[in-house]
Structure formats: structure tokens, C-alpha cells
């Protein structure tokens, strides 16, 4: 337990130091994604920036931002370790590699939260986006992110086996932006597309988060209407599947002898 904690903190420290080395990239990404949000806001608003519409979108965008970070930091980060030749060294830790990566997940949460806060402040000042600060949103966001990072582990596992997973990660990242309810509510989608969208890890979380944060519903109410229950079940399943898939992929990579290859 102690070794796992030390390893986890070591991974967080290392990831933060490397992010600091590449701080210009992090800075540019923060603003690039901010511009994408504004651009999509203009498109959906028919050429105008409607603050009510943008506030609705921002809740989904916030979850998507974390989802994107989960996929990038776990899969691309892992690929970076492969090409740097450090993945095999990482795999020689007494702690399982999946758990070491949890340190990266934590760093990803920290950095993404900082980026979201910067963007949120700018949007608040320039676009009049006002998200009600309700503490009930925090557990819902945390539950949503558990599912999201479970999904990140699936993509990371695919990276261990298939190596060239950038295009897959790209497709998934962009697909999620458009079909997880960030831009368009599920009710406005065709039934077949809404069914597919519900299977994605962030979709249900975004819907519940909107109910709690924007509509002002209590946790008791979302528990009663079963949406919170489903969110807990969905996120737990995503995390369990993510962990199992990653573990399986690590075994396959070791069997193929390709763990450190890229």
C-alpha cells in the first residue's frame, strides 16, 4: 500500500514536471480548445453567441474537456513513454502499470481543472456564461469522471497492443464532443443515435450534471428519478471494464514481446 502511494505520488510529480517543461503546449491547447468552444457556440447559435445556450453547452464541454484529457494523457502519454523507451522501466515497478498510470490520471485532473478554471473565467468575463456554483455538482462530476477514466484505460490498453492508436483516440475524442450531448441534447437526436450516445461514458453524466447544476435539482431528486443510480452503475461498469481491458492488453503485449515497441 505504501509502495503504491509513493509510486503514485512519484508519477504525479513526474507528470507535472514534464507538463511544466512543455507548458507552452498546455497554454496553447487551453486557448485553442476555448476558441473551438466559441466557434461551435457561434454555429449552434446561428451566428450569435447566446449566453443561455453557451451555459448549457459549457456543462457538456467541461466534461468533454476532461474526457479528452483522459484519452490523451493515458493513450498518447503511454505512446510517449513507448517512444521514449521508459515504458519498460515503468513496467518494472513492483506496482502494476495500471496503478502507476492512476498517478497520471490524477495529474490530468489537476491540469484540466486549472485549464477549465482559466477558460471558465474568460468565458464568464467575455461571454456572460454563468454556471451556478452548487456543491452537488462535485460528486456528479466525480462519478462521471470515474467512467470517463475507465474509458481512457480502454484506449490506453489498445495503445499497448496496437501502438498506432492516435487516429482511434482522435476519432473517439471528436465523436464524443458531438454525440455525448455536449452540443445537442439527447432529446434532439434521432432515437437510434441517442441510444448509441447513451452507451458512452460521459453522456449520462452530462445529463445528470445539467439537472443538478443548471436546473437546481437536489441529489435526492436525481436519486429518486434513478438517473444518479444509473450513473453510479454506468461509471462503475466503465471503470471495471477499463481496468480489465487494460490488464488484458498488457498481458497480450507481454506475450507478443511488444510492450516497449512503438
Amino acid at each position, binding site marked *: 500500500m*505504501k*509502495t503504491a502511494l*509513493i*509510486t503514485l*505520488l*512519484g*508519477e504525479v*510529480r*513526474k507528470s507535472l*514536471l*514534464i507538463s511544466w*517543461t*512543455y507548458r507552452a503546449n498546455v497554454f496553447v491547447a487551453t486557448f485553442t480548445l476555448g476558441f473551438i468552444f466559441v466557434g461551435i457556440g457561434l454555429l449552434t447559435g446561428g451566428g450569435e453567441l447566446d449566453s443561455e445556450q453557451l451555459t448549457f453547452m459549457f456543462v457538456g464541454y467541461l466534461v468533454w474537456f476532461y474526457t479528452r484529457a483522459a484519452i490523451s494523457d493515458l493513450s498518447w502519454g503511454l505512446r510517449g513513454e513507448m517512444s*521514449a*523507451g*521508459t515504458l*519498460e*522501466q*515503468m*513496467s*518494472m*515497478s*513492483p*506496482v502494476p502499470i495500471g496503478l*502507476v498510470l492512476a498517478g497520471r490520471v490524477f495529474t490530468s485532473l489537476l491540469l484540466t481543472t486549472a485549464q477549465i478554471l482559466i477558460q471558465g473565467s474568460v468565458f464568464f468575463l467575455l461571454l456572460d456564461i454563468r454556471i451556478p456554483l452548487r456543491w452537488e455538482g462535485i460528486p456528479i462530476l466525480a462519478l462521471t469522471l470515474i467512467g470517463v477514466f475507465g474509458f481512457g484505460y480502454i484506449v490506453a490498453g489498445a495503445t499497448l497492443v496496437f501502438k498506432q492508436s492516435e487516429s482511434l483516440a482522435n476519432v473517439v475524442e471528436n465523436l464524443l464532443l458531438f454525440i455525448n450531448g455536449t452540443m445537442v441534447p439527447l432529446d434532439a437526436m434521432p432515437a437510434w443515435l441517442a441510444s448509441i450516445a447513451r452507451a458512452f461514458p460521459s453522456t449520462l453524466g452530462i445529463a445528470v450534471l445539467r439537472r443538478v447544476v443548471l436546473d437546481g435539482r437536489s441529489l435526492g431528486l436525481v436519486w429518486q428519478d434513478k438517473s444518479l443510480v444509473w450513473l453510479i452503475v454506468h461509471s462503475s461498469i466503465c471503470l471495471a471494464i477499463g481496468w480489465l481491458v487494460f490488464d488484458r492488453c498488457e*498481458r497480450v503485449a*507481454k*506475450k*507478443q*514481446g511488444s*510492450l*516497449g515497441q512503438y
Partner: protein
Amino acid sequence: MESPFAIQIDTLSKTYRQRNGAPIQAVKDLNLCVPAGQVFGFLGPNGAGKTTTIKMICGLVTPTSGRVRVGRYDVWRHRSAAVRQIGAVLEGTRNVHWPLSAWDNLLYFGHLKGMWGRRLTRRAEQLLRELDLWDRRKDLVRTFSRGMQQKVAVACALVADPPIVLLDEPTLGLDVQAARTVRDMVGRLAQERGKTVVLTTHQLDMAQKLCDRVAIISKGRILANEPVEELLHLFSEEHYQIKVEGRLPVGVADCFDELTVEEENGNTILRGPIADQDALYDVLDRLRGLGLPLLSASRAEPDLEGVFVRMLDTDKAREER
């Protein structure tokens, strides 16, 4: 009772599958025991199965069959305990994070092994001072020369003070000076600190100087596994050096089969394996026929390179038969 062996490999095999499904057997029924506290040379041509074996010892490649014990621990059943016994520098990779400083790399790899606090910082300082990297500890590794980067990799492998150190081609791509630094350090690891070092290298002169024992592997099979002195002695029986006055006529050198021919101060020296006394007299007769006076003929101690080449040639000839 504590085993005298740091690593025990028992009928270890690894078969890879190519994309078309065809099998490639990288390691075949390998049996090997690495004595504790020695420098063990693991030598072989490219593609012999050295790196696959090293990676199976590290738990990075799953064997098709067989098992590996590191100290008291089976690598696959007790992975966590087994990898604590090992520090490794793997071939063909950076092994360390270039965007981090040497100091931060050592702290990170210490954390990965569960070390922290003053014990870790003291150890990191000790290693960086020993390797003459202390003054540049805060510089990013990507600004270092290749030799310095390799020294950081070796330091990271040693940071948790593991009893076993696996060095897969640690001097590959290094200049003479840097290679010498790494070589000296490897020597000290076993002599002064009692570590077990498994070393793979193509620099056989280095292996001869450093190793207590060597195993020669080819096509996934062990051809020899002996203490260096005994291995050299095995071949000294049939290894000769003959010195004659003057130079061999052009084109004649090729007639002396496996003997190497060198010129030195106007004289000619022939070295190499000669099967028995009859063959020796035959060579001497041929030299006399060329009118070259004999200066000396003596049994010579072969070097590891000579033994290595001879063993591979013998194996190849046996396969062709």
C-alpha cells in the same frame, strides 16, 4: 537455505508469432544459473535471443514455457517481489526521461521502486557524485551527451540498490571515454558492492576483462556456460602462435585455413586453432617449404573473441552437417 544463484532459468522458451502466423523461436529450452556476486557475460550474435532472455528475467516478456527465478522469487508468480531485486538498463531505448533533469529522473525511478524521503535523496546524491554528474544534476537529460545519458540510465537502474543489475549493451553507441567510464563502474559493482551483474555486449574484450563467467548463446540455445578462464583454457589446447622470419608471398596467407596472419617488424605471425600435432607439423613444413626461417612456435592462450567466433563456426558447421 539461501540459493547460491541470483538468477535461475529453467527450460525457458519463447516463440514469437509473425504477422502471417509463422512461429519464430527466439529462445529454446534455456537452462542457466547466474551465481550471486559475479559479473556474468551473456554473449551472442544479433538475434541470438539475449534481449528476449533479459526481458523475460525482467518480467517484460512472457515465456512460452519454463520459468525464471530471481533470488527466491518466481518472476511470474511473485512479480512484485522479483522486480524489486532487479535494476536494468535495456538495449536500444533511452531508459530515462529526457525532459527531466538527472536529479528528477533518479527521484522518479526511486519512487517507482517504492523509495522516498532522505534515503532516496542520499542515494541519488551518492550515485550522481560517483558518476561525475553532480554538478549537472539540475540540467535536463536531453542536453547531455550520449555517454552522460547512459550514465544517468545506469544510475537510475541502481537507485533502489538492487542486488541484481541487468545491463543490455550498456556501452552501445558510446565513445571510448564514456564506454570506459561505464566499464569501470560495472567492474566496481561486483567487486566493491557484491552485486550480481548480467552483461550483454558485443565488446568481447570488455566482457573478457569484466566477466567471471560467460554464457554464449546462438539461435536461442546455450553453446557454452563456463567461467571465463576455463572457457579460454578449453581452447588453448589447440591454439598456437607461430613466428617466422620475413613475409609470406602474396596470396599464400589464404592457404593457412583458420589461422590469422599478421606482419610485425618484417616478420610474420600466424595465430589460431590447429587441431593436433600432425596438423602443426604440416603447417611448419609448409612454412619451411616457403623458405621462411622459424623464429618461434608456442601454444597460445586464445582471447574471448577467438573462442566466441570458433564456437559459432563450430555450431554453424554442425547445423550444416
